[in-house]
């Protein structure tokens, strides 16, 4: 996997990495998503580039991408998330550049000018994409409903806030606490701020809480080729529970998260380097004393899982509301 060697980075890649960290400064609290920050870094690479052919430029962008992924693997800048959106964002950007090149009838100079011009739109892409998704998705939230969600997703939050504030709908939210990073608590604060009543429950209460819920909305780290999603651990179980209880299961994801992955099962996911799973904050303090480093004990801190397409009812994207089978269509159109 992406366990890159700690060899000294080339000066160009060092600039790239510094750039990314710069853009990512406080991104968890800001509205800039990681892939969008990566795309901005790529734009800077193009600005600085001295390449005169498309092949040369693409190899520079490829090197930048590898550098950023290396950073994501070694340092935990993704939070407890995977690097899939970073990778898909970079690949989509490179694909976009290649396509512009062909559209401009293979005129390199013209292509670069066009890309840089349009580059400004990328800056606001996070916000515009989320806005568009919120507009599509808030129609599915109706008066008096109970919405179940998982952890803290900025896309889902903007969707629910739009339904509450702009459309003046009255509904309530149940949020799973989202261990190990506890995003649920943060989400609860955000919803309360928007005057939406919210209940926080344990992750393991998803079966219990599902019968009260009218629908489930979650975000995504990545949307894969067969229409499934890769998201925070627990999403798969949530999908299965929703299907068992005939509850609609919606996923809200921006189109730059469409990844060229085709997982067949959980084991087929790219392995993400994660931090240690600690058993702090339990109601029985003796648990903290237990030595988890014994020989036969393995603590597996898996942070992402794969939810197959059959558990997903619809996907809210900035391209519109899509069925899972339409994702493959979009990807084929983009990459074929």
């Amino acid at each position: 996997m992406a366990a890159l060697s700690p060899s000294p980075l080339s000066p160009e890649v060092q600039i790239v990495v510094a750039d990314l960290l710069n853009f990512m400064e406080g991104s968890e609290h800001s509205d800039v998503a990681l892939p969008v920050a990566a795309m901005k870094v790529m734009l800077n690479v193009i600005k600085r580039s001295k390449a005169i052919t498309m092949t040369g430029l693409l190899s520079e962008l490829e090197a930048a991408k590898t550098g950023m992924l290396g950073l994501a693997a070694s340092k935990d800048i993704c939070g407890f998330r995977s690097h899939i959106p970073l990778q898909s964002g970079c690949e989509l950007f490179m694909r976009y550049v290649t396509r512009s090149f062909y559209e401009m009838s293979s005129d390199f100079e013209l292509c670069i000018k066009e890309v840089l011009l349009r580059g400004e739109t990328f800056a606001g892409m996070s916000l515009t994409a989320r806005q568009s998704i919120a507009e599509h998705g808030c129609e599915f939230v109706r008066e008096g409903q109970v919405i179940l969600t998982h952890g803290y997703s900025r896309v889902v939050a903007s969707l629910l806030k739009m339904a509450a504030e702009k459309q003046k709908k009255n509904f309530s939210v149940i949020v799973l606490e989202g261990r190990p990073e506890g995003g649920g608590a943060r989400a609860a604060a955000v919803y309360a701020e928007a005057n939406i009543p919210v209940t926080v429950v344990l992750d393991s209460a998803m079966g219990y809480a599902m019968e009260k819920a009218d629908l489930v909305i979650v975000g995504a780290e990545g949307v894969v080729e067969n229409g499934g999603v890769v998201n925070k651990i627990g999403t798969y179980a949530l999908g299965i529970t929703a299907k068992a209880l005939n509850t609609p299961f919606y996923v809200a994801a921006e189109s730059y998260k469409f990844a060229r992955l085709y997982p067949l099962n959980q084991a087929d996911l790219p392995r993400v380097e994660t931090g240690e799973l600690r058993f702090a904050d339990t109601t029985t303090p003796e648990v903290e004393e237990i030595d988890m480093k014994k020989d036969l004990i393995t603590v597996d801190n898996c942070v992402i899982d794969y939810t197959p397409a059959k558990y997903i009812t619809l996907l809210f994207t900035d391209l519109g509301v899509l069925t899972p089978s339409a994702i493959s269509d979009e990807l084929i159109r983009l990459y074929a």
Partner: protein
Amino acid sequence: MSTEEEKEAEKARKKAEKAKRAAEFAAKNPNGFSKPKEKLSKAERRAKQEAQRAAKEDKKIPGKKAPTNADDCFADGSNSSSQETSNMTSNNTSNNNANMARLSSSPQTLALPPPILNNSNSNRKQNTPPRKSSTASNLPYSQPPSTVDAQSLFSHLSPPIKPVVTKTLSPPPQTSKSIHPSTVTLCNSYSRFSITGSNSRCIAMLECFKKIIGDYEPPKDKVMSMDLTRVLKENFKVITESRVHSISMGNAFTFLKNLVTKIKHNEETSAAKENLLFAIDQFIEKTVQFASDVIAKEGSTKVKNGDVILTYGCSTSVKKLFAKALEQGKDFRVIVVDGRPELEGKEMLGYLQELGIHVTYVGFNSLSYVMKEVSLVLYGAAALLSNGSVVCRVGANGVTLVAGAYRKPVLVCCETYKFSKKVQIDAITHNELTPQPEEFKSEPNSDWVGVKYDVVGEGVAGIVTEFGIVPTTSVAVILREME
């Protein structure tokens, strides 16, 4: 120019001939093409209708002659019956006649179906009532349907081809001058099942067409593109008569026809032929062979260390996939499942043994036994239909279902040239019947039914194509993109 004048003269001559013939015809037939209609009475019309219906029913029973009048439809096959049965049937016929008289006089009575005849000549089970009797059509209910035996279920398919075991190459009966000797060789290979598998058959057919094109010389007064198309079509027809063509062959032939129609009028023959041969070579190299190399590369990413891969039968792309995974240094083993009577899995077994991959060979019945240790199921396809159904060797559907029951992912390897716009939801509407194996002895009350293809509607996780791995729902999209 002289050729134009000649053409004009030709046209005028033909027109004159046509007028002459029309006049002759008009003289002979004052009514034109339509015959004067006979005026029949209602009873006569009825009788005629029944006779036609009886004849149609009887035609469906194999080896039976059509009865000459309506009465005979009760006496099934009694035209060629033995001594005992003829007495019995004649008795029964008289009974039946009496029945018929009763029936026609009182149509409201709930009459029982006529007595079942014990006829040893037709291959039917004892309890099968005779087919719908047409003279009892004034009954207020319809006859119970005859048991749907396997033969009638597949009766719409052409009968199975018996592999011809002759030492000499026999040309097909009506040979015209345009049938090339290599076509004859190909037909023999197909009908003897010495070439099997959609890729091999397609390549063999294209090689044959290359020879035809190579030896082809356009006649002076004909346009090359149209005449060559005619020659190719005739050869293709003969090939399909030896064995029904596969979808891969059909698509390849369509590709070839499109190429031929694009030959310009003024193009030089040898140059046109060169271009055609080159295009065919490119097709074989890229669309067929290179595609399966890309599929091997894409699919090998799904093979992980410690995996146990199950495969069914034998497929070119799957073989290449295993070789590629081995090349990448992955540690895995293979279980080959085989199906009778063709036992195509033996070829896969031999290939894997040569590569040095650990292989387990099991029969179809052991499927549920081995499935629990499997991590991935892979097999090849004959075709992919636009509703996402996979056409593959018979037995693959069973493998897919068992894999689904054990929650194992199933991947199908299929080159895009095998994609078809057809839609099929079951394996009965279009299929190929297999001939009876030698060890099966024909008995009066038993039938052999074997089919070549299966249609897998669901349960497939993904299709490995040269465009990457795609879900089955995306076949229609790819077909659209390919145009």
